[in-house]
């Protein structure tokens, strides 16, 4: 295979749209944190974006095929790290998600595992020999995703564990999932619901209940939902004249989970729809890259990224407008947070990786 790659093949339009979204995020973060104790967060976000951008370049340099060839090791490494968390992990905020590194830094494996999963799943499906998924293959695919997911669930980290699901779903769907198998999945999901409800922690149950009826607990778990709705609604078509909800501290965590609410209050329907449009363009562009990928693996890789990105947007914006319960899932590229930004750019690096090699055979 020719190894000639050119940065002309970098998906510059995609990069530009991504950076526009990041810029909007930075501006909104600045506005929302201006007079609070989080002031200056927007500067840190800029650093993360730059850092992520560099990382994206780096990732795109190594041929993804080579990465995929090593994916077995990476997968084992990720399982090991998750196990290390389970055994040696530090408890923080009630969950064991971190390992303390010798340097004093904290290392949260579950985010990395997500990336590796995309790679692993892509490799697995690209190696399949049938057009339609056989039962053994189906189960194996489930295990590849299921095992780390259960380990993360045990931390417990429901939110992150749930983000593994779209990877599996997308891959299964594209990999030739048969209707019967889909029904099995749905059946399983339905059966485990009551068990899952039992296992939910009280605050998680509260969140679900508040989702159904935000009015029931105005001051507690319903509070965030109601405040988000008020903020978004009072944005009207063009944006609220005084973004009181964000600036008078009514909207909780406006720089992270509810950044879209803050943006919607400030810029109204027009602005919010615009951002949605930008995300849509990004997703469509990504899908196009998937379609022009040189092989199945490349397609699976890009679509894995599409799956994760779509899921985040669906859950976060859905929460903001009241269609989904409150979760801790950030809005990619806009929410303040280093690990989220980094993940996105690494994932985009993989996409660039695939795209840049689309003429290679």
């Amino acid at each position: 295979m020719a190894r000639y790659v050119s940065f002309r093949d970098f998906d510059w339009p995609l990069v530009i749209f991504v950076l526009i979204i990041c810029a909007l995020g930075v501006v909104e973060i600045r506005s929302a944190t201006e007079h609070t104790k989080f002031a200056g967060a927007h500067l840190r976000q800029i650093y993360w974006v730059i850092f992520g951008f560099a990382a994206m370049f780096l990732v795109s340099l190594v041929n993804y095929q080579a990465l995929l060839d090593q994916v077995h090791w990476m997968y084992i490494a990720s399982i090991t790290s998750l196990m290390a968390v389970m055994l040696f992990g530090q408890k923080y905020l009630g969950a064991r998600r971190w390992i303390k590194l010798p340097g004093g830094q904290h290392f949260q494996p579950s985010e990395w595992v997500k990336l590796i999963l995309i790679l692993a799943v892509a490799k697995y499906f690209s190696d399949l020999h049938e057009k339609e998924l056989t039962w053994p293959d189906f189960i194996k695919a489930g295990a590849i995703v299921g095992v780390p997911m259960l380990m993360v669930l045990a931390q417990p980290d429901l939110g992150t564990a749930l983000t593994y699901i779209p990877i599996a779903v997308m891959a299964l769907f594209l990999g030739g999932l048969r209707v019967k198998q889909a029904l099995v999945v749905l059946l399983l999901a339905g059966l485990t619901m009551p068990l899952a409800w039992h296992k939910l922690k009280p605050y998680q149950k509260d969140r679900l209940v508040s989702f159904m009826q935000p009015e029931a607990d105005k001051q507690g778990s319903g509070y965030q939902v109601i405040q988000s709705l008020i903020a978004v609604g009072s944005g009207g078509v063009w944006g609220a004249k005084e973004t009181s909800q964000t600036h008078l501290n009514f909207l909780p965590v406006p720089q992270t989970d509810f950044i879209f609410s803050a943006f919607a209050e400030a810029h109204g329907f027009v602005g919010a729809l615009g951002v949605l449009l930008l995300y849509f363009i990004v997703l469509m562009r990504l899908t196009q890259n998937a379609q022009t990928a040189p092989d199945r693996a490349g397609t699976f890789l890009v679509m894995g990224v599409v799956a994760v990105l779509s899921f985040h947007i669906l859950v976060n914006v859905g929460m903001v407008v009241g269609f989904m319960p409150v979760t801790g899932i950030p809005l990619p590229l806009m929410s303040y947070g280093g690990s989220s930004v980094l993940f996105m750019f690494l994932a985009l690096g993989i996409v660039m990786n695939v795209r840049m090699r689309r003429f290679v055979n």
Partner: protein
Amino acid sequence: MFGREEKVSAIRLTAVQYIILAIFLILAYGLWRLQVMQSDFYSNLSEKNRVRDVPILAPRGKILDREGRIIVDNYPSFSALLLRDSNRDLYADADLIAQGLHMDPKELRDRIRHFASMPQYQPIFIKDDITPDELAFIESHRNELPELDTIMAHRRLYPRNGFMAHLIGYVGEVSEDMLNQPQWEFYNPGDVVGKSGVELQYNQLLMGKNGSRRALVTARGREVGRLSETPAVPGRQLKLTVDVDLQIAAEQALEGKNGAIVAMDPRTGEILAMVSRPTFDPNNFAVRIKAEDWNKLVTDENHPLLNKAIQAQLAPGSVFKIIMATAGLQEGIAQNLHVNCGGGASFYGRYFKCWVVAEHRVHGPVDISKGIYQSCDVFFYTLAEKLGIDRIAKWATLLGLGQRTGIDLPQEVTGVMPSEEWKIRNFKQKWYAGETISVGIGQGAVATTPIQLARAIAGIASGGILRRPHVTNPTDLPVGMMPAANVPNEMKIPLDPENWQTITDAMANVVNPIGTAPSAHLKDIDFAGKTGSAQTISNAAKARLANGKSKFKDNGWFVGVEPRRNPEIVVCTLLEEGEHGYLAARAAAQVIKAYVEKQRRQPTKMADHKKSVEVGAVWTTPDSDGEGDGSGRLQGGRFTLDVTSKHVPLATAAPGVN
């Protein structure tokens, strides 16, 4: 052969694209719903979030006496509170705060911990009614302790030691039960309203109307801007007919005893003094009464919360003989009635004793006058038998017994005046003639309140005019404020002039050596009255039970007037367990004396006294030199009456102000 090089199904890829599109359309719809369709609704909610109506509390009206002296005032009370929306470590500061506010650091920490789960924008109240030095501490530590703040409220300041407590009443937060009643339906929870006495009766006048301030607030509740303001309408002050000088005299007369004194001007019905004992301190209610203190008050068998002047209905004893005399004379029987008191007499097969037996003597021949001033039971047994219960009831009812006087205070009781009809209605039994005999000397089923007796006796002494007692003057109230009473302001009863003279002259003799209360005699004062000792249970029962336990001691009564005819003042004294009427007479005499002496000192009549001496008054403790060093005392202004006082110091204000 299917392999790596096979492309992913294009259909499926396109399907994914459409699914993503669908998701975005749903999200866009969500936005549309909130921002276009329901935008106004949410804008309103955002307004409600950020705009708060803060009430501006209206100060309650002061209560003054008839000369404008302040009895009840308000004082600014500061409460200390802890703000919790900053990053300060409250536990670390607790020691310093506790020291400055004279609190126990551990209690303070416990309190902070107790409220830790509440929303951060709610401050914690840590101390009510802080003293000036504590206030100074907070002010001087604004930099070091920014989480410490104060809030001011007006609190009611009542005279100390329960002075006039029953007449004035007390205030408290309106209760849920009250809010359900129609007359309170426009009040809000948290409103401070009168709960008893004048505070309750004239609450609407005293209360004023709270204003409000619309302020812009953050989620923490901190005000960041002011939008509009409606000022508060302060409550109006209330002028009572009571004279603080006489009130002091009455309170002193009742010192250490249980019972009541009420003094009234029969020419107008104005109440000049009203005391009930035991008393309570309404200042305890003004902040917030502790449950245990309340329980103590409520279960005390001496009933400190009861205003006995209008709420104690007891057998009047021999005071009732004046009413009997009126009935007897007007019915033409008593003039010619002469009995021989040998210590008792038999009626209907029962022997009724005369009290004189206890002094080992007898009355001998008794006519109506001697019957009054010597309080001969036999005379009145006989008179009662001749009159019959229904005629007695008729005259007693004319004189206001068994009915409310209509005084403008809440919860006055009616007392009891028995009659045949009454017995049938209430007990489904016939009235036995024998029961009339006890009624003749004010025992049996008769029960009166001090105010009733005062009005009745004064009415007789006035020649047959009964006036409705009141504690405020209608002229001092705004139009329409006087609560409507079902009692006419004036009631006339027929009283022939000779009968009038007979009764009043006999009453004057009561406080002479030939009467039953010579020790109450007042030199150079035309003082007349009637004593009474009312048994609470029969002698026989007493002997069987109590062994002289105080509960069964007799009550002592006295009603006195000055002068004897067309009196300017009537005083009724009830001494519970006071055994004898003459002790009650002495107490009443004290009040009469104070009245007369004050009158003689002033050239104008009390009722016309126009000099009003009003200055803001805040109490100082009597042992301070008036400067106050601020610790534990509140400073205030002083005022004095412009009167040359010599022997008896006239009050300058209610007790507590020098």
